[in-house]
């Protein structure tokens, strides 16, 4: 099957007042049509930066992006302003983490959706409004006609996120980027929005990249997963095999620190000691080595190329013995 998104050797560097920040280094991603990829990692691991790069949303004068990004057959990094605008919102759309911040507060939700439809389909404002209504129904917002004229602050958190999804899907994008879309919501609303997203993704045959730090959510929605640490993808593969049999010590640690349904009541969650590294220098060795229980001398040497076996990949010097150790020791959620 054709890949709708291909990322090759993506590196993103930010210029800050304290020097360069190497936010993302050497990321490769493939997303097939109609599939969902979960991008997992803790805060600052480069998930959101990677996502924003797919739409080239970083401020250009403070950001250096290297590598190659192809979305729906277009080379994103070489597109001109107009062509980039045509791609954004039409071929690839994004659902943001905090809908309260992602909506313009002084325009009604209906107007904002209609504006995007008019922009990409060149239709009349009225046709845009009609599409907005259709989308609001599609994301199951109660009394959608009334909600069209609501301002973002007049909606509840869950409804706002549904409206955000309606906006993102209004031009039938081929790829949907969801940047922790449920993190800002109440637990009960989280699962509704999650199920809605999965349903829409399947119904519309979209591809989706889903950023989360919640392993349970990843298992729920994704086909594939990529685990990020300190700006690199350290493990990648089908979500069920990666989650049941993690290879990389970081993935193992992440799973060890996660609650799962059939967990033993007495069991304690094991935290990963230490903190992620600062990214003010380009880390060429394994960035996880200082926190890794299996680290040895050679982990401080520059990282070897990714180890690929079948449909899985991991970047650890001590593979496959570490993966073997884990299989015997770690209990994982199913």
């Amino acid at each position, binding site marked *: 099957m054709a890949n709708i998104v291909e990322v090759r050797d993506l590196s993103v560097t930010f210029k800050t007042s304290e020097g360069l920040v190497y936010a993302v280094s050497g990321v490769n991603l493939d997303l097939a049509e109609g599939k969902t990829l979960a991008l997992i990692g803790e805060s600052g691991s480069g998930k959101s930066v990677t996502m924003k790069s797919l739409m080239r949303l970083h401020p250009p004068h403070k950001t250096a992006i290297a590598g190659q990004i192809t979305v729906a057959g277009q080379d994103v990094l070489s597109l001109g302003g107009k062509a980039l*605008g045509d791609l954004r919102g039409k071929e690839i759309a994004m659902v*943001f983490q905090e809908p309260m911040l992602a909506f313009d507060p002084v325009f009604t939700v209906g107007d904002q959706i209609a*504006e995007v439809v008019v922009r990409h389909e060149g239709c009349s404002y009225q046709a845009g409004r009609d599409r907005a209504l259709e989308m609001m129904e599609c994301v199951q917002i109660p009394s959608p006609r009334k909600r069209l004229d609501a301002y973002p602050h007049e909606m509840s958190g869950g409804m706002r996120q549904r409206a955000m999804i309606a906006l993102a899907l209004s031009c039938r994008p081929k790829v949907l980027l969801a940047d922790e879309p449920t993190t800002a919501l109440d637990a009960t609303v989280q699962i509704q929005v999650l199920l809605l997203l999965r349903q829409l993704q399947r119904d519309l045959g979209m591809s989706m990249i889903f950023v989360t730090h919640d392993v349970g959510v990843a298992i729920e929605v994704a086909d594939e997963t990529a685990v990020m640490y300190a700006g690199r993808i350290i493990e990648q593969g089908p979500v069920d095999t990666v989650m049941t049999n993690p290879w990389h010590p970081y993935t193992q640690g992440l799973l060890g620190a996660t609650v799962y349904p059939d967990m033993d009541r007495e069991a304690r969650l094991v935290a990963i000691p230490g903190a992620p590294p600062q990214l003010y220098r380009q880390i060429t060795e394994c960035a996880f080595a200082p926190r890794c229980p299996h680290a040895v001398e050679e982990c401080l040497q520059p990282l070897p190329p990714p180890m690929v076996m079948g449909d899985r990949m991991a970047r650890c010097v001590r593979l496959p013995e570490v993966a073997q150790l884990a299989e015997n020791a770690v209990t994982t959620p199913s």
Partner: protein
Amino acid sequence: MFLYICRRIVYTVPIALAVAVVCFSLVHLAPGDPLSAVIPADAPAEVVERIVKAYGMDRPLPVQFFSWLGRAIQGDLGVSVATGRPVAAEISRALGSTFILAFAAALLGFLFGILFGTIAAFLQGRWSDRLVTGIALFGVSVPHYWLGLLLVIIFSVQLDWLPSLGAGSGSFMDRFPYLILPAVTMSFIPMGIVTRTVRSTVSELLGSEFVTSLRARGLSNVSIAKHVAKNAAPSVLAVMGLQFGYLLGGSILVETVFSWPGTGYLLNGAIFQRDIPLLQGIILTLSMFFVALNLFVDVLQTLFDPRIRRS
């Protein structure tokens, strides 16, 4: 919306009343006898008594206040001590000149302020930003009577391009040259303040998540600018309203430097001649304009930002 406006108008009444009290008491708080300018120093006691009675100054202060206020509401601000003409007529004549000057200065100041502020926000940190921010800083820091004198020296005395005194007479085109120097002088402060407000408001908005979200929707820069403008409008309007109020009321120095026949010039004369009714009348009129302007800006803000209506 309608309810909000009504409520806002009702709130204005106590403010206006308080302003009137302050205007009235100024005269009695100022050192010296308010009637000393009218009464000759060697007047016999019975003449003094007659004059005091004629001005109603023998009655208790609250009674004086309400009778003054009652007449003021009907448009009767008393008679000027210096000229013997009705204060209301004096003020309405001067008000026109002041309005023209304030409008011209506001137009210049706001136009350049918005332009400079937007440029600075979009090109933050680059040389054009620094240049514009420097001009804005100059605008708010420089004393404008000094700037007025400087402009007179350059454009009237040295180059002899523009007149430096009065408001001229005849058709609009004949009078226009008289307006240029005072308007430019007065525009510097609002220009500087509006530049700074627009720069900080717009640059904050440009860094906000919703602008990223607008970009992610594929909207053009023009459309995004529309969104940013509507978001920036309430705070910029608030500052502009305040500045326009200052332009109306605070032009004493500039009007005096240019002998511009406006309320500031009139006020300056009234202060030196201790023309109490005129003084009270001008201060009251300008204050009421300020109050009305604030009301207008408040209502305007709600048109741009729906969130204000609720709180």
